[in-house]
């Protein structure tokens, strides 16, 4: 279970997030919505251990994330979380395969057979040798999704995964995320304004930032 309690975040004296509370049970999904600039990406960063909150706590089962050392947080993120960033955060100088391999190494696995399966599922097996810088946005998005599912992540975080995609690619990516989450029995925490995504994924819970809950 993911428990977010009384979470607040201020930057330069400005309170961006205030008293956010929610719980997500295992294999349940959460949609985070709200207007631009409201702090959705910041919240996702906090949930992933990339940004220390000003107040409050994040608990994954019995682990209090921010009571861990920075290194332990990094290790926890590598092993338990899969993240699809809005800007993909892929290493452009690397090929698709190398991007997945480095994530596999970070996760601590030496076995690379499953990487090919992942690439098959996202439809990029025949392009694995191509550098990320030479890919289209849709392809980059698919690499980012494939990378998020390396290892055995229990929590998948996606930040606007379809913001720059056309309808066809939105369908492909959204379905891919849904299928892979189910395959890994992982909870999905997704930020999006995109109604097309919301119609494909049936979220158990919706967190609307900027609204009084």
């Amino acid at each position, binding site marked *: 279970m993911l428990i977010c309690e009384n979470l607040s975040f201020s930057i330069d004296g400005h309170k961006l997030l205030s008293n956010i509370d929610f719980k997500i049970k295992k294999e349940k999904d959460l949609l985070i919505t709200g207007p631009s600039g409201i702090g959705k990406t910041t919240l996702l960063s906090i949930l992933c251990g990339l940004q220390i909150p000003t107040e409050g706590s994040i608990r994954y089962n019995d682990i209090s994330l921010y009571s861990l050392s920075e290194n332990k947080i*990094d290790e926890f993120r590598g092993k338990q979380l899969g993240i699809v*960033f809005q800007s993909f*955060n892929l290493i452009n100088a690397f090929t698709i395969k190398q991007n997945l391999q480095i994530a596999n190494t970070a996760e601590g696995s030496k076995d690379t057979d499953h990487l090919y399966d992942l690439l098959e599922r996202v439809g990029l097996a025949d392009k694995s040798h191509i550098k990320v810088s030479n890919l289209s946005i849709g392809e980059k998005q698919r690499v980012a999704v494939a990378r998020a599912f390396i290892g055995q992540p229990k929590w998948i975080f996606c930040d606007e995964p379809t913001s720059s995609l056309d309808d066809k690619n939105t369908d492909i990516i959204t379905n891919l995320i849904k299928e892979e989450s189910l395959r890994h029995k992982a909870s999905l925490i997704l930020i999006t304004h995109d109604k097309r995504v919301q119609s494909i994924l049936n979220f158990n819970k919706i967190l609307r930032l900027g609204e009084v809950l």
Partner: protein
Amino acid sequence: MILGVTIITLSVLVNQITKNTFTKNNPDLDVVVGAKGSPLQLVLSSIHHIDIPTGNISYKNAKKIMKHPAIKFGVPISLGDNFQNYRIVGTDKKFLKLYDAELEIGSMWEKPMQSVIGSNVANFTKLKIDKFFVGSHGLIDTGDIHSEQPYKVVGILKKTGTILDNLIITSLDSVWNLHSNQNDILKKSDSLEVTALLLKYKNKTSVFSFPRLINKNTSMQAASPNLEISKLFKLTGEAHKIINYLSIIIVSLSFAGILFTLLNNINERKYDLAILRTLGFTRERIFSIILIEGMTVSILGSFIGLILGGIVYKCIEFFSLLGRNIVTGQLNFIYEILTIWFVILIISFLTCLIPGIKVYKQNIRNTLLNS
């Protein structure tokens, strides 16, 4: 890095090996008497067998000097010929005792034109016992040979690790046979000459008085081997210092190069490094990646520098006049080179820590946002 370490290695090798060679080649002699001229040239030609002699001195005078009360013993030497650039030294059997030489095979010379040869001479010229060879005029092979009177090899000496290994030793009579009138030799005439006289004092109090006596009152000169060689090293030491300063500057520049390259690299790759953190790489792991990158450049660069330094040194040794007289098998300098290498690696490590710490302190969230 490669250039700097090459120069340092070369400088250490040249300095240490030549110093050791000069030290080992002097069999604890106190003074050399020879014809007037440069005292350093006299020492180099008669003890280290590098330079050409300053001239000859009368054998009669040499005998007188050997009987001087201040002298414990003296060994006359007569130079003039070579075989395949290995010098032929006419002398008496005391010469071999100076180097504690022992025969590997064969016997000592008993007659004129018999010779014993050093171990390097035997190895490189393939001369064997009972083989004959003809000496060439001069101290380097000019092709002008004494074909009428060949030498016979009667003994081969054990390796001594000194200049003796590179010499062909024979009696004074043999050299005189080739260069003097036969009647003079038979009568041991006053006209017979030797190149130099190697002397040992009875006690050290003669260090100042004896050379002054020779230099003031005779047409000969007396030179102290230790004094002349230390003067030589004082001169070359200055050049050695300049080379060392130069190599230190080059190595320092290479450290700065490594530092700026790494800093530039991490600046260009800070986004990629932040991505690695999001994937689960810990700060320590990324820190060690940066350190390994920098140290790989340093270790490889300095190692190649060491090898190149060694190769350049060997080339110099091969082509130089001193090269043939180098005492091989010296390992003392290895410690000095390893110490220098170790110091370079420590400084490299400290240099690499700077970008490593910068990466360690990186705020991944801000880096990803700013990119």
